[in-house]
């Protein structure tokens, strides 16, 4: 029953719409139109239709973007924690008895600068560490020097120095336990942790 009624209503609408169009066309005063005018009109039509297409495209793009943004936001929610973790887990390494920053150390620090810019409230402790070779006091001073080198790089990149604290552990807290170059290289490092974790 309902289906039949709907069909009838639809048919009625189509009939009325076609009548209306016929009437409006009939009412229009007959105008003599030159070919150029027709061409112009055609052009206008074309332009309008192009604009329509463009609008449609624009809508489509926006929706794609929105979808991408929705996905990115979801991913960002997952990776904000990862980025924070990476900030802490990615260490900066040094050469033996050297506190200057290597190219790879600078690359790692550039990432950290970006993260610190994105998180202007973060307060960070920079730890300087040494390998087991050399003597205790000098290594504590060298660890301090390494932490200061890192702090210097970050402040020169525009990070407020009041957000950065340095501390040296010398050779007291090795990351790797071995007694070979591999372990030593891993232990000559600067590490990062957040002030609140102290």
């Amino acid at each position, binding site marked *: 029953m309902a289906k039949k009624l709907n069909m009838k209503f639809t048919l009625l609408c189509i009939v009325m719409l076609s009548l209306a169009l016929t009437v409006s066309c009939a009412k229009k005063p007959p105008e003599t139109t030159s070919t150029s005018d027709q061409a112009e009109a055609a052009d206008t039509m074309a332009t309008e239709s192009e604009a329509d297409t463009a609008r449609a495209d624009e809508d489509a793009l926006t929706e794609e973007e929105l979808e991408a943004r929705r996905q990115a936001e979801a991913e960002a929610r997952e990776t904000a924690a990862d980025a924070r973790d990476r900030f802490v887990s990615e260490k900066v390494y040094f050469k033996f*008895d050297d506190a200057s920053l290597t190219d790879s150390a600078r690359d790692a620090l550039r990432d950290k600068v970006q993260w610190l810019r994105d998180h202007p409230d973060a307060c960070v402790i920079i730890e300087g560490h040494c390998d087991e*070779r050399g003597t205790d*006091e000098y290594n*504590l*001073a060298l660890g301090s020097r390494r932490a*200061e080198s890192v702090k210097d790089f970050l402040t020169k990149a525009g990070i407020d120095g009041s957000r950065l*604290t340095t501390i040296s*552990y010398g050779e007291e807290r090795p990351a790797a336990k071995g007694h070979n170059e591999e372990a030593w290289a891993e232990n000559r490092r600067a590490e990062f942790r957040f002030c609140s974790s102290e």
Partner: protein
Amino acid sequence: MICACALVLVSGVCPQAADYDYINIREPFSQKIPMAVPVFKTLSQGSTEKQVAKNAADMVEAALAYTGYFKMIDRDAFLQDPGGQGIVMDEIKFGNWTDIGAELLLTGGVRLESGVLQMEFRLFDPYRQEMILGKRYTGKVDGQRKMVLRFCGEMIKRLTGRQGLFDSRIAFVGTGDEGKAVYVCDFDGKNVTRITRPQSIVVSPAWGPDGRSIAYTAYTHGNQRIYISNLQDGSVREFASYEGINLTPAWHPGSSALAATLSFEGDEEIYLLTETGKIDKRLTESWGVDVSPAFSPDGKKMVFVSSRSGSPQIYVKDMRSGSVRRLTYEGSYNTQPDWSPAGGQVVYSGMKDGRTDIYVIDVDSGETERLTNQAGDNEAPSWSPDGSMIVFTSTRTGSSRIFVMTASGTDQRMLLDMPGKQQLPDWSPPKRQ
């Protein structure tokens, strides 16, 4: 309380002029003096006296052998009963001692009556048939070690002209299950006492000039700070807590000032601090690490470690003129300097081919001598107050342990055997006269 009196009346001979020719001060360890110490004589007939007499002789032997000056002749080689013989001049058969090559003879007697211990010591030259030194001490039984060490000190002073090291102590960092702490022991590793609570990082214990306090660095509240422990009353006060590191305190002799490395200005520099920890002045002016100051005995010069040349080297600063000169040129890693009590030398640890050893350098000539050449790393040297010995750490037996040797590098041996590892020894300074 120990009473001491000279036994000049016991012997008819009493050399007035000091005889320093027994020990060659220039090369005191090149030839050890053969010496005999018979078991002490019991002067009364108390039952425990025999054991006290045996202990006394053993303690004297151990203390004197420790110095590296003497070679103790085995009692089995004696031509006479090692105990119970006459101990005074007239009763001694000097031929029995010259026959076994004893250039020095030390006799002793003990008397133990109603808890009071009396000990007599006589030092003879068997070849000259003379008594060099005689002393009698009276005190409680538990003062025996003190009496023995007192006499040994007198004897060394008589033979070398220098105050001995028998009343000196050694501070060091010990690592146990609970963490690191500052410990103190006697010169010979006896009477080990922990004087600070265990913490995660403790370094650089440094004796005050009075021998009554020790400054050290400990990691607390997020950075390394300098504390001073008072050994008299056991109190600890925070001395320096500037931002960054507060490291390697060193007392300036004859004043209450301390030098230390601070990094609050963004660079590790050495500063002079007042006794309340306020900054008096900055002593180093170079970018990079400046650390481990130690003063010459007259306080006019400071030796320290700097990385200004690109590697850690030892420098000397004239405190008055401010001029600085580099002292070490050999090797690319020289640290931990300590100025000799006599003033002419600096002992330090230097790295060569990946191994760290103890070196002595003449401050004026720059002549360098390596004192350790064993397996393992040898670090953190510190002079005894009389300058005759050096304490240091070595990993030659595995974990880091405290060793001593003569200032010539002879007689290297482990000072104490305790669990964990021991580091950064500092020998107490000479007593102020």
